């Protein structure tokens, strides 16, 4: 039983962590927290199911197509919901514009896809529903892959260093001649891909369901709030911890307590440590 709780807790936690990283990647590039992060996670599942099950695309091309569309949605977020209001960051218009865009995505999926959870294809076929089933470890593998990929990107490539530069000091980066606007768009595309990976990898666990977007929006934000804005390490630790905590509470005392407890912890941490548990505002964005 313990292994079942751990398996599902870590799996769902990995999804929360990835959505948290999606928030962070968008935030690092633009200082904007976007409500589309959870919707991208939802789209990863819905698009994967749409391409592979409905349209009959093989799995690998289906994954590529899904991530491509998610990247496009990321870029569209930047173009439609972020860039027009970026100059008025003080008025927090981005809260409303990204919320509006997120609602648009959700409603379009509800209308053209379905308002009921739809099945997601079996990707590999390992495990038979037990704790070792692929639906539990695929999100973890995806999470590890994204961490490794981001680490490589940020440490070893010029583009990655440019991302870090605009995240650290936008003005200085522009003074050095970095194409800030293009880098921001690239960051949003990257965020789209990460969100898409989260959704695709967790498709078998969460199914292709339009309402996953708002749930992931909140539970993906909790680790960001716990770990501190822009702190990916905090988001991943926070996400995994949240997942395990939620599943344990679910099993031991029921879903009512689990939901209330998560929300209570969220509010208490926000009040006690507004910068998050793992860092300060100047924490390195890894």
């Amino acid at each position, binding site marked *: 039983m313990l292994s079942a709780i751990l398996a599902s807790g870590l799996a769902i936690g990995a999804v929360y962590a990835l959505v948290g990283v999606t928030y962070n990647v968008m935030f690092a590039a633009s200082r904007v927290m976007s409500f589309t992060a959870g919707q991208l996670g939802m789209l990863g599942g819905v698009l994967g199911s749409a391409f592979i099950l409905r349209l009959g695309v093989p799995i690998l091309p289906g994954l590529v197509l899904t991530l491509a569309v998610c990247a496009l949605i990321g870029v569209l977020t930047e173009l439609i919901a972020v860039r027009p209001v970026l100059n008025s960051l003080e008025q*927090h218009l981005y809260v409303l514009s990204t919320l509006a865009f997120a609602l*648009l995505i959700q409603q379009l999926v509800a209308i053209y896809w379905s308002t009921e959870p739809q099945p997601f294809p079996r990707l590999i076929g390992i495990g038979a529903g037990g704790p070792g089933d692929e639906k539990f470890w695929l999100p973890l593998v995806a999470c590890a892959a994204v961490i490794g990929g981001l680490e490589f990107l940020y440490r070893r490539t010029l583009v990655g260093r440019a991302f870090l530069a605009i995240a650290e000091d936008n003005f200085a980066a522009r003074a050095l001649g970095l194409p800030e606007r293009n880098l921001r768009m690239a960051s949003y595309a990257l965020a789209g891909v990460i969100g898409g990976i989260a959704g695709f990898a967790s498709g078998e666990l969460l199914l292709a369901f339009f309402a996953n977007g708002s749930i992931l929006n909140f539970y993906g934000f909790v680790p960001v709030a716990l770990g501190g804005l822009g702190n990916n390490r905090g988001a991943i630790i926070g996400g995994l911890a949240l997942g395990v905590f939620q599943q344990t509470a679910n099993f031991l005392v029921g879903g009512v307590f689990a939901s209330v407890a998560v929300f209570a912890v969220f509010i208490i941490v*926000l009040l006690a440590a507004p910068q998050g548990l793992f860092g300060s505002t100047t924490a390195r964005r890894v």
Partner: protein
Amino acid sequence: MDRLHTVLPWALVAAMVLAVPLGFNEFWVVIGTRAAIYWILVSGLNLAVGFGGQLAIGYVALLTLGAYTAAILVERVGLSPYLALVAAAGVGAISGVIVGLPALRLRTFYFAMTTLGFATITTQVALAWQGVTGGGIGLPGPEMPAPFNTTLGFYVFCMILAALCTWMSANIASSRFGRALVAIRDAEVAAEATGISKAALLMTVFLFAGATGGVAGGLFATLQSYITPDAFTFDLSVLFFIAILIGGRGSILGPLLGTVILTILPEFAAPLVAWSTFLYAVLLPVIVLAMPGGIAALLDFANRKPLESDRAIVPRAELLAQLLTPGGPGGEITLRGIVLSFGGVRAIDGLDLTVRPGEVHGLIGPNGSGKTTTLNVICGFNVPEQGEAHLGSARLRQGIPQSRAGMGIARTFQTPRLVGEASVLENVMIGGTIAGQGSFVESLLTLPRHRRDEATLTDRAHTPLE
């Protein structure tokens, strides 16, 4: 003429309320009841969103809580529906405050996210707590006793409550609390410098908004006659929020009309129902960017008069004697060994300063020498690492800027921080907020002390303006 413009729209609203049961069939009476219930929630939320500028987007959660509280108390405990409504208001008020807590310390996105998360978990709990809420199967809404148990009777009941909420929220809007809310929204720092406590004010408003939300929920349960978690979609949250934006910030009539329009809009075109969220989502940025004033700006005839062209700023020293507190402040301001640095920059390095009453002092220094920082320490905005500040013998507690106005310390800013959407008179009256004696509840019900406050404040604000 101005008076006609303010009374006329309200007369039309009242005529509409009467016309629905007289001239339309039962279907429209139900729609009218729904609009009234939504408005009961929005009337409270409007003070937080429209006046206070807080992005509370998940208020469907309060409707849910109110509905389940009332339904459970009537169905499972056997309480009277009226008492159940009161309990719903209580539960709503407490939840409103809890969800509002992060708004005190954190940036808007966090608060928006908290209200959204609250909406998410409320639905989850309603689904999961089957023994109490009936889970996905739901439970029947409370039935009102006669004479409110018919469609028309319930319409009348909801309209009475809606009118009451309109009256109360309008009372707050025109009181010092309403002005303070707008000041927090548009000029937070200046508001604190005039002694407005953001925390206390917002908590009170969230309490009120939560209570109206809870009552609306209880009524909603009766209207639905059977409630399941499905009835409380996030679309409703968006409807409440957009109604306020369409209506216009800082208005009562505008959001009221916005609520009515958004409630009846889908009834005219059935296909719109599926697309309503889509429509709201498109409307949201359009209103914010293209029509920030909303309906209220369209109805605002009074402020369309062009300004007189030959205005001049004339200092009037003779007024000072009337305006300044007789007897002066409570002693001299003394700073002892104040040290304050920002990162590696030491802005104030062991400052000792005495400012005596009755004298005009100047603080001179090059850019970046810590002049404004010194003022900020005196006013409580910056907390020094070492040293103490006193006014007379009283210690100035650091980090609590809203405590300064009460001690007689006022400040201006390098660039004037005016509340753009308030009139000149209201801007001056904001300065007198702490002079008010009446409580929030007294303003809510326009009790004598509130009316006396308003009269005194208006009078005092007129002195320098005439």
